[in-house]
């Protein structure tokens, strides 16, 4: 018979680290609360019949966030055989609050005191035996990160799973216990099971979900209400506060007996926060860090290596070797062309950016692991709130710098429905890792000496999010204040080399995998369309099917300054995966052939379009509809096709408008003269300003009508 083992605990207490250790998998671990948004399952290493479930972190079993609902439902309805309650021992008091609730559920619980290494290092001592006695469950000291104590934990959990339900330690005052006893007696027979104590407490607290679930008769409800009101009058407080306070009192008593803390006062984390989240320095520090990350990865370290990969590896080494081999075995011309001009040029162009991406991933992993990422949400909340978003929207955006798909999924931690939709729509404005090669290519080819193009892409993304936040928030659909911001901040710590490298590699691996599959297919398709004419004969690029198609679309982009058909085609292939933009350039501009001299690659780009047009192209590709995978993820989170179409439509329109404004005003400043499209750009700027400053739509119906008139 299989055993179900559930991992429960506060957010960011190391559940996923333990999960990976127990199951041998490598699930994503992050140093901020809310990394796990859905439960994950795996088989216990060495015990194939034990299923381990990693539940999202929660502070209590009273559902406030979606994660809490997921966890609560799992524990009630799936009846795991044993709950491993992971507790951050360096923060015992708050963590045990959840423990008091978990033990009430009547399921076998094993308490795992995690981060014991930190506790010992601080010179604190914990008497785990006493804690175990207080909560009536076995306690194991572990360090999930250093894989200490996990074997003991497994054996404790497996033996606990065999136990029969037993009486649960009384944790409340006599008066409350008496009331709970009375409530239990009122429960109908069907509900008198192992969960009965928990049910009684929830009913005592007037928990709405529990009242609905229990489906009690009117008479029973009246009886319960009488018991609750009586207790409330006696203790002069509402039952919910009574329970909360008594839980903390009980914990305080337990901790007093079992926990010796050595130092008090300002912790190193607090001292760092004093500076990093300082009201004056916070933003400059953030901007500086982000500028540094993007500058170093795109313009210096990364570029050096990327140039080597592009020019030497995929320029001098691979192509001649492969071509030589193919010719020597007498391969057909078209196949040589497919491999050389299609696959090596396309996939090679994409892979060439791997060093830059890995540098970038390394920095992001360090920022994340040390605990700074969570602070960014706090710093940005103040600003985001002004634009109708909460700081919590910033976390999906930050994850989105790696990949938009998990970014969109991370929006699930946002409690408010409007905020969540708004975040899903705007998250992909931030340059994801797949857009990095586009930035790097444009920055390298068109602006070789500038330090601002790389970082500017990042700030452009943030700007687009802010502007969209304001505009959309003022529409009727999204009106209303963002949900309040509450977030636990992890302690700062020196990032571990292993963890950081694993993060970097995980993201890098996904990129390589994509290059080998979807991008490979797309490059083959682009090669085919660009090598053959409509008569199915191999022709010059300019006479190919792709050229006809591209030329058909290109005029659309004329106002944006890049009406070259190759750019139009690259934009379209970018919908499949953003890396394709660069891959397509690789094929269409024949990178593999000219790559012997790096400058030549870039000069062919320079010849095709003006720097301003290239920047508009970059802008459009950064902001327009994301790749299919991200659109799919957005579809899942938005929950309807209508919303998905709105999202994609809005993004593309917004991208077009911004790119147009940049190109047209830029040309005017450069002395390009005033034309029809310059006028359009001005009108669009005016419209944008109007949408930014207009009065927010009212939610009531009178306001609705009024507003429609105004905007019509």
């Amino acid at each position, binding site marked *: 018979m299989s055993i179900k083992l559930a991992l429960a605990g506060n957010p960011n207490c190391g559940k996923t680290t333990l999960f990976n250790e127990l199951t041998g998998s490598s699930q994503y671990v992050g140093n901020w609360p809310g990394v796990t948004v859905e439960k994950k399952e795996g088989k216990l290493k060495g015990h194939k019949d034990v299923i381990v479930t990693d539940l999202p972190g929660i502070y209590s079993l009273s559902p*406030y966030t979606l994660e809490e609902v997921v966890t609560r439902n799992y524990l009630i309805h799936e009846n795991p055989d044993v709950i491993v309650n992971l507790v951050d021992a360096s923060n015992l008091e708050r963590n045990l609050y959840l423990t008091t609730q978990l033990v009430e559920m009547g399921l076998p619980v094993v308490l795992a005191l995690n981060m014991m290494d930190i506790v010992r290092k601080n010179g604190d001592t914990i008497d785990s035996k006493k804690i175990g006695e207080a909560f009536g469950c076995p306690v194991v000291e572990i360090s999930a990160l250093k894989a200490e104590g996990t074997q003991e934990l497994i054996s404790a959990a497996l033996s606990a799973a065999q136990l029969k339900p037993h009486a649960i330690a009384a944790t409340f005052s006599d008066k409350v216990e008496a009331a709970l006893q009375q409530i239990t007696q009122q429960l109908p027979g069907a509900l008198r099971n192992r969960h009965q104590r928990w049910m009684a407490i929830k009913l005592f607290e007037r928990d709405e979900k529990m009242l609905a679930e229990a489906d009690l008769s009117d008479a029973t409800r009246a009886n319960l209400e009488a018991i609750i009101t009586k207790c409330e009058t006696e203790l002069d407080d509402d039952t*919910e506060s009574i329970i909360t*306070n008594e839980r903390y009192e009980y914990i305080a008593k337990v901790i007093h007996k079992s926990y010796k803390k050595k130092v008090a006062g300002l912790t190193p984390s607090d001292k760092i926060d004093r500076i990093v989240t300082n009201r004056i320095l916070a933003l400059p520090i953030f901007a500086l860090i982000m500028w540094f990350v993007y500058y170093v990865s795109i313009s210096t370290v990364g570029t050096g290596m990327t140039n080597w990969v592009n020019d030497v590896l995929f320029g001098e080494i691979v192509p001649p070797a492969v071509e030589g081999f193919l010719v020597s075995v007498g391969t057909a011309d078209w196949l040589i062309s497919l491999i050389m001009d299609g696959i090596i040029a396309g996939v090679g162009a994409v892979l060439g950016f791997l060093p830059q991406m890995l540098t970038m991933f390394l920095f992001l992993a360090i920022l994340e692991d040390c605990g700074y990422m969570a602070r960014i949400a706090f*710093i940005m909340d103040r600003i985001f709130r002004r634009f109708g978003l909460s700081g919590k929207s910033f976390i999906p955006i930050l994850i989105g710098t790696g990949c938009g798909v998990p970014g969109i999924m991370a929006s699930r931690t946002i409690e408010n429905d409007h905020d969540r939709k708004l975040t899903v729509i705007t998250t992909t404005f931030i340059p994801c890792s797949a857009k990095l090669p586009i930035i790097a290519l444009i920055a390298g080819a068109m602006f070789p000496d500038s330090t601002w193009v790389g970082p500017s892409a990042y700030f452009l993304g943030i700007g687009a999010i802010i502007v969209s936040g304001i505009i959309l928030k003022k529409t009727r659909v999204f009106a209303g204040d963002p949900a309040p911001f*509450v977030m636990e901040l992890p302690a700062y710590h020196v990032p571990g080399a292993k963890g950081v490298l694993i993060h970097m590699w995980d993201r890098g691996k996904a990129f390589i995998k994509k290059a080998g599959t979807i991008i490979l297919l797309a490059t083959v398709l682009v090669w085919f369309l660009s090598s053959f004419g409509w008569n199915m004969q191999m022709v010059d690029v300019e006479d190919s099917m792709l050229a006809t198609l591209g030329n058909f679309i290109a005029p659309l982009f004329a106002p944006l300054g890049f009406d070259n058909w190759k750019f139009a085609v690259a934009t379209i292939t970018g919908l499949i995966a953003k890396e394709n933009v660069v891959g397509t350039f690789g094929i269409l501009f024949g990178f593999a052939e000219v790559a012997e001299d790096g400058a030549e690659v870039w000069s062919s780009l320079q010849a095709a379009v003006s720097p301003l047009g290239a920047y508009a192209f970059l802008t459009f590709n950064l902001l327009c509809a994301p790749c299919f995978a991200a659109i799919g993820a957005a579809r899942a989170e938005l929950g309807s096709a209508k919303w998905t179409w709105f999202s994609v439509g809005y993004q593309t329109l917004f991208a077009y408008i911004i790119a147009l404004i940049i190109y047209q005003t830029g040309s005017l400043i450069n002395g390009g003269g005033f034309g029809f499209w310059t006028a359009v750009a001005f009108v669009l700027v005016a419209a944008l300003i109007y949408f930014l400053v207009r009065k927010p739509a009212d939610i009531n119906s009178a306001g609705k009508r009024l507003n429609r008139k105004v905007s019509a």
Partner: protein
Amino acid sequence: MPLTMAKAGERNRIKKVTGKDEVRRFLASLGFVEGESVTVVSEIAGNMILNIKDTRVALDKSMANRIMI
């Protein structure tokens, strides 16, 4: 007075958490309950980082205003 008036570095005791809804319940699960002491680590325009029960919790102004010290 509301917590937003507290100075950074000061240690204060919570007198009351106002309101009576799920937000208050959530604050309670984070440790914001009557009688608990809370330290302001830093403050930006009313948004605060607070030290409570050995953890750091970031709250926005509207939330911090509901905590009376």
